[in-house]
């Protein structure tokens, strides 16, 4: 079972790496924010898999924190950081 947990964690990490392409490419700030959201969800899954694989319960608390922060970051982005007109170049 442990091999499966670790293999899936590596697979999700590769997913994250693929998501970096969207951060580089853009084109709008919203697309980059979506990639950040992907990182949040995937990081939660990776942390939970590692917690199960290594029997380390503290990692579940880290995952809980990531889940909390994911909501806060996105709301902060839309309300504060996303300027008007900065993303009109999106196709």
């Amino acid at each position, binding site marked *: 079972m442990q091999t499966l947990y670790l293999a899936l964690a590596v697979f999700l990490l590769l*997913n994250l790496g693929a998501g970096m*392409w969207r951060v580089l490419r853009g084109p709008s700030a919203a*697309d980059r924010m*979506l990639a950040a*959201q*992907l990182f949040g969800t995937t990081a939660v899954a990776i942390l939970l898999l590692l917690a199960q694989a290594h029997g380390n319960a503290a990692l579940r608390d880290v*995952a809980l924190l990531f889940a*909390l922060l994911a*909501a806060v970051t996105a709301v902060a982005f839309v309300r504060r950081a*996303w300027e008007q007109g900065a993303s009109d170049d999106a196709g």
Partner: protein
Amino acid sequence: MMLVDVLCAVLLIAGAVFFLAGTLGLLRFPDVYTRLHALTKADNVGLGLMMAGLALQAGSWAVVGKLLLIWLLVLLAGASVAHLVASGALKRGIRLWKR
């Protein structure tokens, strides 16, 4: 291998497939609205399937409760992000994709 292990492995792998679908959607879809659709739905389902698989192996109800709490938080985040980003993009004049 016991039956529980097989079920857990099936759920975990199904979850990973949904995560792959979400990433592919984020990379391949043409505009921000379709990317939102792929990301906030597929990833949350994938995470839910992984939670179900891990909950089978958890060993105590406290851990199952914590997994459920994490999933609900991620669902809440996904739903609010989808609404806020989509309405923000409309307000800022990002056009809908047409073939």
